[in-house]
């Protein structure tokens, strides 16, 4: 019996793992290729790093390839990213040319593998052009879009649409992100890995060590927001909410933890603003953490009484699922994918203003029983909906459906079917 998958059974339940095995049995031996733009850093790479070994263990032949390019290529795809999420970014022609040349060069290298695969998952816009460059493909090609396409900048979307329209299917995280495309668009939310450093159970002494490291008093209430120093995450709004809540909750502490500001000019500016806003208060801890500080983030979230994600714009917000998974109610901005995770009065509260966040912080801190009840519901909610095993099941199901023809209400997989 396999080991990696078995490790999930105590967390998710045996039935979930059994279900994965049943589904994968119908796909055994199929060749699958995932292509994205990086092996490390970012949510997509994090998910693939765990998803691919699990698919392999389930009997699929899976490869993970990465498109590589020069600075013009990355500048172009960064502009794509911003434009597709709504910024009116005019992209110069030479950057489009760099994008196409990079795709062509990488496609040359990967074409034999891609054209022979039964399923090709192309993640995000970076390698999206591969489809056009593999005319002899024999398998099903799926464009997996991880970004918020709800209001894209039209000229850039028109270009990207021309690249992805020919795919056999696409996958979006939320219904509002789907576009009008001439193929089936599946809706699959992302997930967190309960066994990763960021989410695995920690011993109390490890949590205490992190509290000591950052001068946090475990006897006093703590609220934590983990996210990049980005205006869309509204860190200044969180500080305002903290100050309002502290008027009636003495001893309240706040941690704003994030990373990656050093190589992001705007992030640096936001970090400076946040540090300035926090300067006069020793109970506001602004922490710039290295990108691999997963266990530290895990410990901070576990040390918190309440996790906050007060974004004013958010694709999905996996830090919400991380907080919920640690049994913490989450006070989240009433936007994007946070709405799917924070259920008012059940797993936390959706808020539109710092005042709203302050009100909910005070409400939860004055009623520890309620806080614990909501935390327990929050963890169960993630267990049932946002763990990697559900994500993997959905990918397997998409492959099974594509093999059978996807324009049907149901498919029945017998035990002997391939």
């Amino acid at each position: 019996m396999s080991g990696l998958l078995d490790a999930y059974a105590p967390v998710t339940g045996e039935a979930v793992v059994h279900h994965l095995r049943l589904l994968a049995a119908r796909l055994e031996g199929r060749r699958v290729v995932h292509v994205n733009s990086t092996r490390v850093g970012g949510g997509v790479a994090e998910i693939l790093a765990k998803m691919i070994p699990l698919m392999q263990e389930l009997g699929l032949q899976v490869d993970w390839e990465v498109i590589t390019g020069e600075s013009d290529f990355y500048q172009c795809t960064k502009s794509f990213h911003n434009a597709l999420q709504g910024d009116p970014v005019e992209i110069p022609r030479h950057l489009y040319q760099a994008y196409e040349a990079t795709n062509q060069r990488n496609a040359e290298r990967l074409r034999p593998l891609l054209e022979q695969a039964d399923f090709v998952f192309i993640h995000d816009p970076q390698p999206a052009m591969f489809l056009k460059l593999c005319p002899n493909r024999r398998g099903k090609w799926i464009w997996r879009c991880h970004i918020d396409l709800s209001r894209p900048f039209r000229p850039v979307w028109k270009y990207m649409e021309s690249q992805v329209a020919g795919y056999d299917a696409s996958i979006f995280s939320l219904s509002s992100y789907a576009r009008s495309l001439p193929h089936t668009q599946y809706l699959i939310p992302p997930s967190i890995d309960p066994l990763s450093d960021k989410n695995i159970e920690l011993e109390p002494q490890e949590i205490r060590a992190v509290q000591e490291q950052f001068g946090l008093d475990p006897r006093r209430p703590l609220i934590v927001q983990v996210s990049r120093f980005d205006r869309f995450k509204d860190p200044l709004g969180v500080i305002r909410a903290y100050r309002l809540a502290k008027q009636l909750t003495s001893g309240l502490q706040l941690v704003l933890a994030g990373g990656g500001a050093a190589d992001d000019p705007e992030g640096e500016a936001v970090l400076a603003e946040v540090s300035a806003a926090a300067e006069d208060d020793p109970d506001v801890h602004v922490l710039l953490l290295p990108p691999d500080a997963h266990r530290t983030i895990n410990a901070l979230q576990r040390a918190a009484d309440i996790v906050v994600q007060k974004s004013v714009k958010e694709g999905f917000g996996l830090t919400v699922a991380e907080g919920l998974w640690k049994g913490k109610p989450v006070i989240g901005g009433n936007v994007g994918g946070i709405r799917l995770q924070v259920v008012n009065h059940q797993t936390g509260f959706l808020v539109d203003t710092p005042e709203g966040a302050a009100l909910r912080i005070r409400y939860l801190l004055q009623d520890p029983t309620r806080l614990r009840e909501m935390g327990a519901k929050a963890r169960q909610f993630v267990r049932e909906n946002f763990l990697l095993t559900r994500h993997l099941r959905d990918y397997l199901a998409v492959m099974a459906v594509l093999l059978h023809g996807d324009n049907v209400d149901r498919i029945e997989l017998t035990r002997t079917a391939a």
Partner: protein
Amino acid sequence: MTASHPFAVIDCAMLSIATGLSAQNLRELRDRLRSVPASSLYFHFWGAHLRPGFDEPEYGNDFALWARHGLSDPALAERLSVIRPPGFGDLEALREELVEVVEQRLYEREVVPWAPADQEFHFIRSTLVVLDTGTRLETPEALGAALARFSPGSLFYHFIDALRRPPEGADDFRAWLSGFGDRYSGLIERIAGIDPYFVTLSRLGRELSQAFAAQVAGGAA
């Protein structure tokens, strides 16, 4: 006495699929309701059981939920929430009732209610992937004992999805138990009392287990 065949445990997974259709106001909702695939109605009434979402939803279907939170029309939300699919012969009859309720509300309102720009109603349909688990249960006692280990997908398939399959209007548990003659009529009656529209899958599992424990232990109706 035994049934003519063992109980075959089936599992399923639901894939959500965007239809590309959405509504920003109540009039658009009515128009889309007239034309969306029936599988979209199925999804918005039953899909909540199997898709990422909270286990104890405020309203029983997505249309009522949107009326309340998207359109801020609690009266419409209440009227939509009492529409129970089992009360209609098929999804087309359900569609007619939905359109009727929305039409009535449009007639009552002086201004067509609108949702905020980022809270459109997105029509979604689904594909159900049905899997035979290979597990076969020979007796009601064995079925009762196994229920605690049923996945949410199995409970959905045998209790909710079964309502769309012959025999009409019966879940798989009752259909199978009826093969034992009158012996389990008490259990069949008790299962019939569970309303699939308002019960969550986790509660459904508990209620079924309790029903089997109480009735099968006695061995008779």
